[in-house]
């Protein structure tokens, strides 16, 4: 591996666009905009949080970045090469550098394979290891995720969710990746054991030359511990990005603030049901009106919000917000 200066972009997502079309009521089709011009930069060894509610496009972004799904528009540039267009032959040696951990630890393992077989399967993409070294490596990886080699012989259904998720991280670490996309890795786990996964990531971050992480989640709480930078995504749009401190201590976008508030205990007074349809498919209507997509949900909306599409602009060094009123509202 070539040494690259720290801080340089290793993976760039440029103006990623992806639309799914679903069949509805016979021949009519309904289009769902999963990603709409999303750009992200991932630097070597850093942990980037990507926060958004369900259906915000965050998982789609992960799958596109790993080339599991084709973008409709935009580019995924890894080490200066656009990977979506690469022929299979050129892509395969790169594949091992971008790994993934899935939300549901149980369903992400082949039920017919033991943990050792699953890890060996992933180690097949490491040509520099011979077969006997690979088995040894399985033991080392399981130690690294604090499971121990005795788990190697178990089948997925014999393990708890937390243990399996650690095994999934071991599997992602196996081919020595540059980046691991963690797609809601703690969402299916009990609150009392989420800390195990988060702390394991903290340990892995400290290791020299370890991979960077993209932590996709709807739960901001967990990012406070692990993320260096955070992107907030909703309806296929990045609405705010910045360092962890900027997002947690000086959030600017109304949506970010709403997410932060919802994640804290003791919020009795501000909750009211005004009967508004906040979760209707806004992605459908708003693309037609041309205004801010969060118009219907935003308590700070003004008439101008309905007229102008909002653009990302830098309001602090490193902090970008998609809202013209970002400075005024408090």
């Amino acid at each position, binding site marked *: 591996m070539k040494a690259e200066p720290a801080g340089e972009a290793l993976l760039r997502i440029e103006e990623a666009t992806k639309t799914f079309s679903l069949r509805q009521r016979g021949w009519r089709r309904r289009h769902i905009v999963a990603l709409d011009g999303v750009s992200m930069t991932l630097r070597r060894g850093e942990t980037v949080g990507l926060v958004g509610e369900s259906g915000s496009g965050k998982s789609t972004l992960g799958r596109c970045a790993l080339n599991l799904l084709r973008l409709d528009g935009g580019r995924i540039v890894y080490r200066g090469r656009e990977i979506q267009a690469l022929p299979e032959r050129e892509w395969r040696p790169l594949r091992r550098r971008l790994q993934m951990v899935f939300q549901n630890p149980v369903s992400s393992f082949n039920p017919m394979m033991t943990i050792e077989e699953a890890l060996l399967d992933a180690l097949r993409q490491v040509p520099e290891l011979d077969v006997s070294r690979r088995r040894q490596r399985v033991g080392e990886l399981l130690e690294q995720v604090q499971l121990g080699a005795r788990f190697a012989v178990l089948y997925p259904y014999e393990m708890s969710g937390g243990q399996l998720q650690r095994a999934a991280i071991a599997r992602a670490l196996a081919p020595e990746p540059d980046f691991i996309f963690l797609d809601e890795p703690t969402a299916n786990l009990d609150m009392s054991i989420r800390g195990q996964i*988060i702390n394991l990531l903290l340990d892995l971050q400290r290791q020299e030359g370890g991979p960077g992480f993209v932590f996709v989640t709807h739960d901001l709480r967990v990012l406070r511990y692990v993320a260096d930078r955070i992107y907030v995504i909703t309806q296929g749009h990045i609405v705010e990005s910045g360092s962890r401190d900027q997002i947690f201590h000086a959030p600017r976008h109304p949506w970010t603030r709403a997410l932060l508030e919802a994640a804290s205990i003791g919020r009795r007074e501000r909750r*009211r049901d*005004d009967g508004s349809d906040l979760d209707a498919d806004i992605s459908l209507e708003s693309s037609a009106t041309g205004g801010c997509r969060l118009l219907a949900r935003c308590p700070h909306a003004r008439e101008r919000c309905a007229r102008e599409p909002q653009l990302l602009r830098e309001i602090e060094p490193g902090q970008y917000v998609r809202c013209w009123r970002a400075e005024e509202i408090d």
Partner: protein
Amino acid sequence: MSLLQIEGLQLQFRVDRETVYALRGVDLSVGAGTRTAIVGESGSGKTALTLSLLRLLPPNAHLKGSVRFRERELLTLDEAELRQVRGGQIATIFQHAQAALNPLLPVGRQIADVCRQHSGVGRAEAWERAVEVLAATGIQQAAARARDYPHQYSGGMAQRALIAMALVCEPQLLIADEPTSGLDVAVQQQVLALVEQVVARLDATLLLITHDLAVVADSCDQIIVMYAGEVMETGATAQVLERPANPYTAALLACFEQTDEARMPFIPGRTPDMRQPLTGCSFAGRCAMTRDICHQERPQPVEVAPGHFSACHFAQEVVEA
């Protein structure tokens, strides 16, 4: 006065010659007019408890104990009497609203059917009532949306429709089993607020089943903490959350708290094997203050403050810590 009184409730499943202990002797009472939360993580038995109340259990289940609802024993009712109670006096909102609705019938029709079953009104009147409750749960243009099918509803709207369905029965007890799972945070807030509104309007009792302590803090006045099929702690929400008297509650609370610690708190170990009977305390294997007695003797509930019980040998020490 207690509306629901559960004593010595045990639920076991026989699976391939093994016994799965889902509830290991649950005693609790839910006061009329309270908003009570049952809090627990996976394997705690909170869902098993709900299903036991309604006796919605598979044939390999064995249920023992007593469940009294308004002084009436539910476990000995026959199927016809039970149907009167289910959906009539006790209504349930299940998690995954979309899956709980019949995909082949318009939403309004499903609500009207429930209405006709319980109040015996005519078709037209039932439909009107369905539209009315849909509107009451905040669905806009309810008359039109009532004719839509469940797949045309978003997750939050489907949950509203389920709440509307519960509303037409005018139940005395409303059980909400993780009503917000799978919904966006913003929508979660609305659904919870709506549940509270409905309960207040009907003057009903709420039993909220959840794993999320944050939800409980806002919505409920009583709390029942469950772990591995046992009740660990009960009391007023403020008491339990501010001065937990059980090490499990305390450890779980720590996992929810926002701190500036560098590492995220967690409870080491895993829940006890559900296929094994327990001798001592169910939390003994993971507890920071375990002593010999914890492995030998099952702790009985101790009243640490008026109305605040904890099943821990050292409850007094925990509450004072």
